[in-house]
């Protein structure tokens, strides 16, 4: 009997380890021989711990499973959700980047190869650097961390830069609330990221890679480190990758709790062992990056999408999507939502469909008041904007951004003045302190919102003015984008701002 219990930290956080232990104990008691695999998550977080049992009908899903249901699971008395791929949330997806996540044992290289892994790297080994970069350009891949910058252009700059040493840096400092795609991928299919980074190294002539991984993800750190050791032991990393005669190696570097280190230049300073303060650009990291050398800095999902582009071809990837938003996006649906989880789909699905049909509306059953898309620097969008298709330009046109594609759902009990104040407070806490609009502006922003809350209507214009200054004058996206949640809350929910009985203190 083959049973799958996820090792993903979202599953562990809701009891997966206890479930796995109970299944093993019950099986031993009944004398049932059992092969228990700790897979990645399928991304249906509301069903976690989601246990799968192999059968002639495919892998049958059960969930959420509790430890005391282990016996019922083994004797077949527990009701199944049917084959896992038939669950509507899963069946509606187009899984390219996350194709293997949840399907395999994340640390089995044999599993990885059996499901298409390493095909892309083998293809890339036979190509020149220019051809590799050309593939990425043709696929139309754009930075999945949030900025949406064309990945091929970035790689080309590094390829053409002359230096004795170049780097590939993976930005795994996924600090945006409502996002967990990076974490899920690193815990569920780490070899994909390793393969993507190796292809990047071959493409631009870099021999060393770093994964800058946040300390808030201890499970992801452990899986990535183990996967890198396995990859090295099997000749996938090291001085002669897959006997190509080419070298590439990488290691994990653990962050230390600074949100701003998700900004690429802060991240590079942090990797160098300095305070994670933002650098002015230019020079671009592609020209002068880590230790002053040409450096690719890409998000986890960007790099983890590289293998499938090389496995199936750039044209296959680029055929998905909408306009200039090519391919698929792993969208994370979170917060107060009935069916929360990771939903990978081609760009173009309207926001409302994601929230109400895929996500099933709020978990509380109350009406949706707003969704915040793109993390703490993303705009709050009311249901009136739910027909916006999920794409970079489409969201930009609505005064928002897709960022790292997290959607946080709020019901009608949310107080948007409180959320706007929190945005400013968060910016004040996390500001690196280098530029004045962010460092001082965020503190003044909290005070100004408090004045509005006390009934001072004249402070509303002041807040708008302050947001303009922060937007135009900040060095990076932290101070520059914090006006998005603040101003969208103020614009769409003016009734929440001002002196009200319930906030009078």
């Amino acid at each position, binding site marked *: 009997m083959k049973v799958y219990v996820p090792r993903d930290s979202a599953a562990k*956080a809701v009891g997966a380890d206890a479930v796995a232990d109970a299944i093993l104990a019950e099986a031993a008691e009944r004398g049932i021989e059992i092969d228990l695999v700790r897979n990645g998550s399928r991304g249906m977080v509301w069903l976690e711990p989601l246990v799968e049992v192999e059968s002639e009908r495919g892998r049958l899903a059960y969930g959420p499973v509790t430890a005391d249901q282990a016996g019922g699971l083994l004797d077949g008395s527990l009701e199944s959700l049917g084959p896992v791929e038939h669950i509507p949330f899963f069946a509606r997806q187009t899984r390219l980047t996350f194709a293997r996540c949840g399907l395999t044992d994340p640390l089995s290289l044999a599993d990885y190869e059996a499901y298409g892994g390493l095909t892309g790297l083998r293809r890339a080994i036979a190509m020149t650097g220019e051809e590799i970069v050309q593939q990425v350009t043709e696929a139309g891949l754009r930075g999945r961390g949030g900025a949406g910058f064309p990945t091929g252009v970035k790689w080309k700059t590094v390829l053409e830069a002359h230096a004795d040493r170049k780097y590939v840096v993976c930005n795994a400092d996924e600090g945006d609330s409502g996002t967990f795609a990076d974490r899920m991928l690193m815990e569920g299919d780490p070899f994909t990221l390793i393969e993507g980074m190796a292809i990047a190294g071959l493409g631009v002539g870099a021999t060393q890679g770093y994964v800058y991984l946040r300390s808030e993800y201890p499970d992801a750190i452990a899986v990535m480190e183990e996967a890198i050791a396995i990859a090295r032991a099997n000749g996938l990393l090291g001085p002669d990758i897959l006997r190509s005669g080419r070298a590439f190696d990488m290691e994990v570097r653990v962050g230390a709790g600074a*949100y701003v280190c998700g900004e690429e230049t802060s991240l590079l300073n942090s990797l160098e062992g300095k305070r994670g303060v933002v650098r002015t650009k230019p020079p671009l990291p592609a020209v002068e990056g880590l230790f002053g050398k040409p450096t690719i800095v890409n998000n986890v999902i960007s790099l983890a999408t590289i293998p499938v582009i090389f496995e199936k071809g750039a044209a296959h990837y680029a055929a998905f999507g909408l306009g200039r938003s090519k391919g698929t996006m792993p969208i994370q649906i979170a917060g107060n939502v009935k069916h929360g989880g990771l939903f990978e789909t081609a760009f173009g699905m309207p926001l409302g469909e994601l929230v109400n049909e895929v996500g099933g509306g709020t978990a509380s059953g109350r009406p949706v008041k707003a969704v915040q898309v793109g993390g703490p620097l993303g705009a709050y969008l009311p249901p009136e904007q739910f027909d916006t298709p999920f794409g970079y330009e489409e969201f930009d046109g609505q005064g928002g951004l897709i960022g790292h594609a997290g959607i*946080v759902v709020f019901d009608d009990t949310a107080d948007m003045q409180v959320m706007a104040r929190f945005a400013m407070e968060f910016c004040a806490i996390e500001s690196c302190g280098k530029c004045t609009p962010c460092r001082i502006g965020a503190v003044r922003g909290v005070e100004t919102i408090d004045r509005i809350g006390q009934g001072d209507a004249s402070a509303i214009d002041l807040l708008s003015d302050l947001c303009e200054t922060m937007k135009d004058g900040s060095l990076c996206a932290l101070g520059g984008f914090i006006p998005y949640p603040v101003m969208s809350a103020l614009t769409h929910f003016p009734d929440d701002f001002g002196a009200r009985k319930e906030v009078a203190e």
Partner: protein
Amino acid sequence: MQHPNPAIDLEDIGALIAPHIEREGPMLPMLHAVQAAYGFIPREAVGVIAETLNQTKAEVHGVISFYQDFRDAPAGRHVVKICRAEACQAVGGSALADATLGNLGVDWGGTSTDGKVTVEPVYCLGLCACGPAAMVDEQVVGRLDEERMTALLRELRT
């Protein structure tokens, strides 16, 4: 506040940071190694690291003080990090945090009087579809409510 600790030995600190000397950008790995061993960065370590990396003590202190993870004094026996970010707020995270701080009689960063539990804020654990979430030492916990949090704290304090 710094706690001079008689158990801290300069040679021990040297041994902790030695494996990282040849690495590129060794500062953060060294600080993580010291904190993993002592639970905080002892004052003595600042001097040793500064000398090893040919930097001033002020520079090392500057790095330590920039990052929320590094502490200059020991925490309580257990550290509970409660997520304050938006996705957890959307499902009652703020009320849970307020109740927890209230029950322990501490503010953010404070330690219960028995020295067992320090409560800190964290901005996202990547458990945004199963909040409210927290991390107890290195263990993640999701779908928390006051009842489960109370049980968790009781367990930590016995």
